[in-house]
């Protein structure tokens, strides 16, 4: 991953994908999509492939509330519903689509999961910043979809703590709003819960932090020391049967 972020040849997409396009066939991870909404009909197609072969996998499709305004969202929802495809459309509703608040741009922003009613689809709303709540819901919905009840739409309510990208200082948000959501940050919240429940201790977390930091440092070093892709890699993967064209004159 780190090498991919740095555009190195040892990256998971050989440096060709970057931060937005990491894939893993071992993990059935179909990657990231730069075009908002592009992944949705694709997810429906993947679900049909599973269903056709009698498999029991579920396609899990992530997107933000901004994507709900794309035409493809509606097309994919309808396709999944009429054919009862095993796909979960999972919306991370963080109240902003790039620089626009969903309150201003999405008429159903406050009860987003109800949009699935238009497609006769099972729909759920959950506190996206509550690790246990999300986990429990996913276990339930996963089991239902796997059993063949048809697709489901989950809206996980959360917040985008930073800007849309490193280029976005997100000055369009009131400070009080940001502070409110900072206090609901799921990770410290979960840590506190685990400590209170006696499941883990402060020392456990310090140990985890240290070992993860070490892992990240090593990954960064690996990325730094890795070679750049060769110039010929520019033409690799354009077509299946022409692996490399070489550099044009």
């Amino acid at each position, binding site marked *: 991953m780190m090498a991919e972020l740095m555009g190195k040849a040892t990256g*998971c*997409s*050989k440096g*060709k*994908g970057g931060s937005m*396009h990491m*894939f*893993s*066939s071992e993990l059935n991870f*179909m*990657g990231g*999509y*730069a*075009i908002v909404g*592009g992944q*949705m*009909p*694709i*997810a*429906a*197609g*993947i*679900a*049909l*492939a*599973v269903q*056709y072969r009698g498999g029991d996998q579920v396609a899990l499709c992530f997107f933000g509330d901004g994507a709900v305004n794309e*035409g*493809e969202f509606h*097309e*994919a929802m*309808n*396709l999944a519903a*009429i054919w009862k495809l095993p796909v979960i459309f999972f919306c991370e509703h963080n109240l902003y689509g790039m620089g626009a608040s969903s309150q201003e741009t999405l008429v159903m922003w406050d009860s987003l999961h109800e949009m699935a009613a238009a497609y006769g689809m099972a729909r759920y709303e959950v506190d996206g910043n509550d690790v246990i709540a999300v986990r429990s819901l996913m276990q339930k919905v996963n089991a239902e979809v796997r059993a063949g009840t048809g697709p489901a739409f989950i809206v996980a309510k959360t917040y985008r703590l930073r800007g849309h990208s490193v280029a976005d200082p997100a000055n369009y948000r009131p400070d009080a709003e940001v502070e409110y959501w900072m206090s609901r940050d799921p990770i410290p919240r979960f840590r506190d819960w685990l400590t209170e429940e006696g499941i883990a201790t402060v020392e456990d977390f310090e140990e985890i932090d240290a070992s993860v930091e070490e892992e990240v440092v090593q990954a960064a070093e690996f990325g730094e020391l890795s070679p750049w892709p060769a110039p010929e890699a520019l033409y*690799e*993967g*354009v*077509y*299946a*049967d*022409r692996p490399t064209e070489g550099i044009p004159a």
Partner: protein
Amino acid sequence: MYVPHTFIECKYGPELVVTCTFRSSPVAGSNRVFNTPLSEQGIVGFGIGLATQGSTAIAEIQFADYIHPAFDQVVNEAAKYRYRSASHYHCGPLTVRAPYGAVGHGGHYHSQSVEGFYAHVPGIKVVIPRGPSQAKGLLLASIRDQNPVFFFEPKWLYQAAGERHTQLASLCTCMQSLSLSAGSDVTVLGYGSQIQILRQACEMAQSELGVSCELIDLRTILPWDEDTVIQSVCKTGRLVVSHEAPLTAGFGAELAATVQAECFNHLEAPIQRVCGWDTPFPLIFEPFYIPNKVRCFDAIRTVVDY
């Protein structure tokens, strides 16, 4: 006209789920053959998803004029899937079929030639057959191709009489261009339904001017067979290109630019492009719009008389 798109899957091989369009008798297995809603973008994206799982999927779009809502899926997903994932995943088993071109009464939205738009997208292939036998062979080749292929069928020919299979070799898997007649005076280049027109123009040129034409059917628009065309024009020194799509930035522009770069010293005359006029495809003006055999013949005469 409200017509549902037909998205048919039929299984005819191990681990193959093939989607093909079907107009007459039903095929067994409604899980393999089914209609879709009117959702072009959704249909193409859906086909991409199927294909990434190794299923051979063929999506039909009722008219090529309607494929543009899916343009984003074509350009930003299908064409880049293999490239951006370094071949972790790809949608090679996808084929998208659509009828294209003038039909005599189609007007603005049932007559368009769209190959020029899709020829501009590295990562997909664009294939256009000139007749029924070619369609069969090229479609099978397109299905088997491990890249996403956009297959545009001349709709005018659906209404023409059937074509006799002259050779079983029409089931070739080769998508390269094909020389239909050897000639020495001028290379005439086209694809799809235009080949019928060009054939007539070449016959006129032979009988009225004594001009020997080398007619080439490009068959695959992207990637196109430069070697065959360049070799031919270096021999004849003259080129006439023709397509129904509008002149400006039509695919003929790519052909002309490449040929002039590669055959400059051999050219005896400027390259002629005989194309649709730069207007939306008209309704009542269709006979004036399309590059008919007379216009093509005139272009041949122009390069020969230059």
